[in-house]
């Protein structure tokens, strides 16, 4: 039996099936954790884009612009709170999604490649969470950025270059730099988005896992 979907080989029907194996649609099977991670990501994209209109990266500008967002700009505080909580939730749902995948053995052949992409997405999500925290530009963020730079510099050979590439030279009492801003707002979300789309497409291609 050829599923109907092969006749309409457009991109979205590849991403989203018209039919799927019985039982694979059970909420108690996947807990929607992958989908909820993507939903948080969409919330983060929207709120993050809006925050960019008022946020100022850099040692001296970051913290004042953050205070402006949190206090005087209409809806600035709620946008920031949404961005913060969607970020925390995304880390948790991505992690739980991985636990679910281990639990249902969904990493087994032919899904190894998708597992690797999933782990990369987990790592990138954590890095996004960290860079977002640094952009706050408070003293605590300065300390965190300084510690991260010193830790990266411990890596033999590539360490110092890598630290400069990822963080620049964060001030010890601020933590926000233009370089971190570009990673957090452009490069990392772009990478995550592309990996996610490929991740979903592979789920369709490799087929759903039957419930236990």
């Amino acid at each position: 039996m050829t599923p109907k979907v092969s006749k309409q080989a457009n991109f979205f029907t590849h991403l989203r099936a018209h039919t799927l194996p019985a039982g694979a649609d059970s909420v108690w099977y996947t807990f929607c954790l992958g989908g909820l991670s993507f939903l948080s990501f969409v919330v983060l994209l929207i709120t993050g884009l809006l925050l960019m209109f008022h946020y100022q990266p850099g040692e001296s500008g970051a913290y004042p612009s953050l205070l402006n967002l949190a206090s005087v700009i209409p809806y600035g505080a709620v946008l920031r709170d949404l961005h913060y909580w969607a970020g925390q939730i995304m880390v948790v749902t991505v992690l739980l999604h991985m636990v679910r995948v281990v639990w249902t053995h969904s990493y087994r052949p032919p899904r190894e490649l998708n597992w690797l992409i999933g782990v990369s997405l987990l790592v990138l999500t954590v890095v996004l969470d960290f860079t977002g925290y640094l952009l706050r530009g408070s003293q605590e963020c300065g300390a965190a950025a300084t510690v991260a730079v010193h830790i990266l510099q411990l890596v033999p050979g590539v360490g110092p270059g890598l630290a400069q590439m990822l963080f620049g030279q964060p001030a010890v009492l601020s933590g926000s730099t233009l370089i971190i801003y570009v990673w957090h707002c452009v490069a990392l979300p772009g990478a995550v988005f592309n990996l996610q789309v490929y991740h979903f497409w592979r789920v369709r291609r490799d087929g759903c896992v039957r419930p236990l």
Partner: protein
Amino acid sequence: MDRVPGRQLWQKEGIASVLFLAATIILALMLPAAVGTSPQAPAATHTIAPWIFGPIQVLLLYLPPWLGAVLLPLAAIIFLLGYPWISKAIGSAAARGLFFSLLVVSALLLLWFMVKEYWWR
């Protein structure tokens, strides 16, 4: 293999999305995100890492940085990346045991961090 229409899944996902968005909005309205200490203020005497990095901050208190913050996290990531192959080599029950041990150890370190940095101080 039986197949069911995708529409059922779409409906369930729709309901889950609405509930999830509502929960996120309620959380954001009730618990504002922290702003931290101003860089202009006198230097803080104690700073705490964001919660997901709690386990690493605890490790840094007791282990040399190259071990606690480079080697151990790197080993954990490599273990996760290699999981499908590790599972094939040592059996899925043993691999699952290792995976959940890693989770439990991280959770314990997080708890340790919480006790030490938030409640105890």
